[in-house]
């Protein structure tokens, strides 16, 4: 966890001096940037302790399989996501006495095949996850680099912006924006990116600030490397490990956020389908056909769980210190709380 924990001290400018103290108190993002002692404790989980690498490996295999299924959904899924009509509605899943093997998980009230909807829903949910991580990550890292590298006024303005946006009520804003812009994959990506880039900016800035003080970066600057080269060759590579862990955790968070929006009816809309929308469609049938909600709920939970496993596995993988600690008595790896927006 070296990058995460080496916070610049003494602080190179007044802004950092201020934020260094105050941010820690409130935001989860701190987990990846803030004061070493508290934040490590705050986010340290049991997972590292309890997971052997086998769990991480298994989770990775699971996720790769899921991603493959999602990519090849049209080949894997027995039916289209909105194929079927009322004449085939409410068929029971195979484990019920009146179930059939042609619809393994049965059909819903529209006559759509549940398994196929889950597969296509998975595809959309994963797509949104990847896209948001890419968009928010790219923007956030750029802002963080700019802020950390330029320092001074740029830094103050950018970090001020981050502070303001971090204190926004995220889910509420997302709901409002989607209600106004209309629910679709594109708007959900846009809205979740808008609400999720700050964490990357903060972390990147923190890492940049700490690296700036390091001899090799100073040396590069002294020998006249152009700033861009310094950033590209010396700073970015050092970001990779912490960024990748963060990205995976954010990915899990986005999956949940999308599902929540869609469940509330303010996310993905027909004919698109996502895991959250499948659950939303089942809402009215909570008592008559609970499987409409329980099946997508379990799939989503499994997915998020495994993404989190992979995140803690990655962290250990990237971090020699962490690996050492694994053998120490109280070694843990960490996970940030998987939150909705």
């Amino acid at each position: 966890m070296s990058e995460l924990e080496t916070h610049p001290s003494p602080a190179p400018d007044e802004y950092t001096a201020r934020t260094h103290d105050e941010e820690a108190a409130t935001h989860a993002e701190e987990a990846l940037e803030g004061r070493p002692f508290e934040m490590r404790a705050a986010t340290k989980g049991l997972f590292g302790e309890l997971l052997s690498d086998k769990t991480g490996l298994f989770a990775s295999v699971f996720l790769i399989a899921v991603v493959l299924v999602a990519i090849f959904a049209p080949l894997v899924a027995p039916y289209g996501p909105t194929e079927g009509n009322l004449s085939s509605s409410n068929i029971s899943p195979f484990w019920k006495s009146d179930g059939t093997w042609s619809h393994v998980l049965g059909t819903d009230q529209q006559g759509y095949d549940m398994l196929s909807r889950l597969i296509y829903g998975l595809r959309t949910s994963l797509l949104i996850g990847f896209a948001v991580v890419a968009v928010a990550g790219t923007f956030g890292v750029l802002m963080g680099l700019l802020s950390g590298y330029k320092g001074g006024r740029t830094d103050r303005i950018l970090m001020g912006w981050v502070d303001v946006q971090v204190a926004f009520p995220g889910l509420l804003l997302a709901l409002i924006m989607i209600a106004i812009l209309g629910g679709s994959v594109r708007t959900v990506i846009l809205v979740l990116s808008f609400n999720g880039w700050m964490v990357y900016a903060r972390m990147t800035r923190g890492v940049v600030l700490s690296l700036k003080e390091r001899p090799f970066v100073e040396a590069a600057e002294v020998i006249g490397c152009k700033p861009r080269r310094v950033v590209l060759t010396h700073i970015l590579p050092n970001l990779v490990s912490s960024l990748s862990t963060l990205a995976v955790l954010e990915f899990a968070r986005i999956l949940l956020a999308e599902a929540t929006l869609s469940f509330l009816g303010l996310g993905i809309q027909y004919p698109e389908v996502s895991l959250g929308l499948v659950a939303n469609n089942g809402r009215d049938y909570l008592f008559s056909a609970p499987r409409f909600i329980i099946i997508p709920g379990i799939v989503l939970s499994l997915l998020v769980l495994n993404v989190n496993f992979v995140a803690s596995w990655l962290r250990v993988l990237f971090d020699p210190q962490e690996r050492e600690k694994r053998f120490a008595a109280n070694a843990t790896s960490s996970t940030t709380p998987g939150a909705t927006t």
Partner: protein
Amino acid sequence: MGRYLAGRLLQGLAVIFGVTVVVFVITRLVGDPVDFILPLSASTEQRARLRTDLGFDRSIASQFWSFLGDAVHLDFGNSTFYRNQGTLSVVWAFLPKTLELVAAGMLLAFIVSIALGTLAALKPGKITDKILVVLSLGGLATPQFFLCQVLLLYTSVEFNLVQFGPGPWTHLIMPSIALALPAIGRLSMVVRSAMIDELNTQYVKAARAKGIARWRIVFIHALRNAAIPFVTLFGWELIRALAGVTVVVENVFNWPGLGNLAITAIKERDFFLIQTIVLVVAVMVVVINIAIDFIYRFVDPRVKLS
């Protein structure tokens, strides 16, 4: 200290202003609530007249200017959904219910997570430890809406354990459990690891060597030090609850709080109401942020307010 507080307040104001501008602009990007207010059969002229009355025919800048002017006098406009009622008084009517729910949920989370975390730290690998793992894994991975629905289906109804919605305090039980469970998973982990760290420090070892009772060490020394990361995360959970999670919990359990109101306001395009809800939530978030900062400095004397 004074300068620090002033800075924090200034930042808080920036947050509130920022939120206001963002919400104001996005709610006016597309359409207006006139169609919602009037019935389907209303004529075009009627719609135009109401549009003018409510000021939706003016430019965003001019609307914002008059909004600010009124806001100074704590007049945030009338709700268009709750006819002829000031939005602030509507929010005021719903706010206590949300506070009640959040207070109950977070109190539950507070007590259970400290108890669970402490027990787990004292006996790593034992049953409490395992419960903790299940809880935290579950809390991490389960979507809140799914948890709520399962609770609704299997406890409230199948076994008729508790009821929900407005009513006597017992109706608080299910929604506050739904609110607290994921937080308990995360918080108790923090208590646990902080406690383990603390129990292994030199001064605790010294204290034990001096023969101080184990419970004294746990409760007076270790717990107090574990409070620092705990407060951090607890504050974050609190904000998370107020500004997001309650929307889902209230929606599923039909709890008449701000979250449900927000959904109604959004679906009905009640711009003024949305504006006020977000404003009130933002103010609460800012206040909690500042409060936690101070608590933080109180429990951790090493941190000075610069």
